């Protein structure tokens, strides 16, 4: 991943070529630093605002912090007002079920497309891919009505059950690409040893595809941590709210917090927003190599 072996410049005869090269290098890093600042500035602002007194959040000129007025207790207050654990439990329940159901069924579907020969395979695969182009709006209303008729509104079922039926075109596509890169000699060897078709999937293909499966799990984490629309439509009672919906609700009416109906302060919202940003950043940071590896292998070999 890291590209070591940067050109070692030894005792240098300082000619024009090297000067131009060095200036180019300086300019190159200047551009990188500029973009890094642009991309990180709003983050910095958010964290800075979360530690200020309420009155200084929007002060002019901007200060990174107000001397002598750093308020880490903004975090504890935000924490006490916001039903974090309950919302986290709801988010995680939905996420884990989606991850498991989605990956399990996508693995099965992708395996059929990657390894088995049957009439209509190409037509069906094109069909799978074309569902990626269907905007969710078209299916949204009938699905809502369906779940309403089933009595599933205000439960996690509409948000989790569909994942068990295929796991989405993107996951199927990514896994199929990955499976195709696994030499079919392994399958043949296993078959000679008496392994069934689906036994090969479980014993050979899945253990060899952990990078792709891991990448999908991370995509799923990122997607569900931030998901807003689904929970907004299907969940009504506050006990079932996910993090994304709960923080919105908190900002709107602030019904929590020792029976007080005060709206939350901006510093507290920023503190909570910072807390909610930490898990996905940590997940990305620690799984980065794994995550990128999954993309590289499927992209390059596919």
């Amino acid at each position, binding site marked *: 991943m890291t*590209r070591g072996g940067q050109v070692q410049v030894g005792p240098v005869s300082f000619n024009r070529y090297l000067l131009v090269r060095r200036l180019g290098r300086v300019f*190159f*890093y200047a551009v*990188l630093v500029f*973009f890094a600042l642009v*991309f*990180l500035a*709003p*983050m910095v*602002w*958010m964290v800075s605002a979360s530690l200020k007194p309420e009155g200084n959040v*929007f002060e*002019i000129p*901007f200060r990174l912090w107000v001397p002598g007025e750093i308020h880490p207790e903004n975090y504890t207050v935000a924490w006490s007002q916001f039903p974090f654990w309950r919302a986290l439990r709801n988010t995680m329940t939905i996420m884990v079920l989606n991850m498991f159901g989605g990956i399990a*069924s996508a693995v*099965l*579907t992708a395996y*059929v497309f990657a390894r*088995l*020969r049957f009439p209509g395979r190409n037509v069906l695969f094109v069909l799978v891919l074309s569902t*990626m*182009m269907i*905007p*969710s*709006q*078209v*299916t*949204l*209303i*009938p*699905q809502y*009505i*369906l779940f309403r008729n089933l009595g599933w509104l205000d439960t996690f079922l509409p948000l989790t059950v*569909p994942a068990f*039926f*295929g796991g989405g075109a993107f996951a*199927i596509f990514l896994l199929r690409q990955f499976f195709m890169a696994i030499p079919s000699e392994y399958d043949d060897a296993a078959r000679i040893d008496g392994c069934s*078709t689906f036994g090969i999937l479980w014993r050979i293909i899945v253990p060899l595809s952990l990078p792709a499966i891991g990448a999908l799990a991370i995509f799923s984490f*990122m997607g569900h941590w*931030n998901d*807003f*629309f689904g929970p907004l439509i299907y969940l009504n009672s506050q006990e079932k709210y996910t993090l994304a919906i709960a*923080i*919105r609700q908190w900002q709107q009416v602030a019904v929590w917090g020792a029976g007080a109906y005060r709206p939350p302060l901006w510093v507290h*919202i*920023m503190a909570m*927003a910072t807390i909610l*940003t930490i898990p*996905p*950043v940590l*997940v*990305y*940071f620690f799984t*980065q*190599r794994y995550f*990128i590896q999954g*993309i*590289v292998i499927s*992209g*390059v070999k596919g």
Partner: protein
Amino acid sequence: MAITVERVAPAQVHRRHLSLQQRETIEAFIGLTPYLTGFVIFTLLPILYSFYLSFTDYDVLSPPKWIGLANYVKMFTADKLVPQSLWITLKYTIVAVPAGVAVGYGLGVLLNQKAKGLSFWRTGFYIPAVVPAMATAYLFMWLLQSDFGIVNTTLRSVGLPAPKWWGDPDTVVWSFILMALWGAGGGVVLYLSSLQGVPTELYDASKVDGANPWQRFRNVTLPMTSPVIFFTFLTGMIASFQVFTQVFVSTQGGPANGSLFYMLYLYRTGWQELKMGYAAALAWVLFVILLTLTLLTLRISGRLVYYAGEEKN
């Protein structure tokens, strides 16, 4: 060894009255059962049913009432919010998607120049993409606040005009475009991995042929990475037609419906005004528009995108 296997296999098959191919087909459809069931229940039937609903008046509480083409007639003649929300969404897509692809790809190309501390930069550029959408929305509401926001104070201090951003129906879309661009670093991972996959032989060969860096980029890098560019462009386009969360948690479509994105209008119609029939018609029109755009993109890309290892026609 191989000969014996070939000899035995047909005999076995004959006994079971199932060829290997038939068995494989049966297994394939067993394996596809969950997907196909899901496809029928959650995609195919809903699409058809929403087509039916689009010809009805349906408030969820009483059964749908057939009203023929009335919903569509209303959309194209009476309801001014339809063209307006379409135009807002289109404007956003036309600017944000190509610009987002360009920024992400540009950063990918930069990072591919043997930058030191690659994982540091990669994380830095990626962070905005993992900040929860509602946190991003709150941030930008105040960054672009017209009187005290950092952006406008900076603009004023260097003597540039400070737009009202969220406060003006004409500029509010630009606030959302800026917000989208801030998250454009999320695609860097994808671009970078495809850039690193370009075979070095191609660069060496073009160097031997005397190509300068720009020509190498234009004739090697760009064609070799065009499938990824195309993929992110297409998915970005479809996603940007469904922009919702950012708008819902910030402007709610205001001011003066200046940020009434199509999806927000659909939500408002279906879930706040309980006009599901009309919302279904809105959804179907969007479906047709997106299908047309997708086919158009595919058509154009046939000439522009290069797939290694794929025979042309």
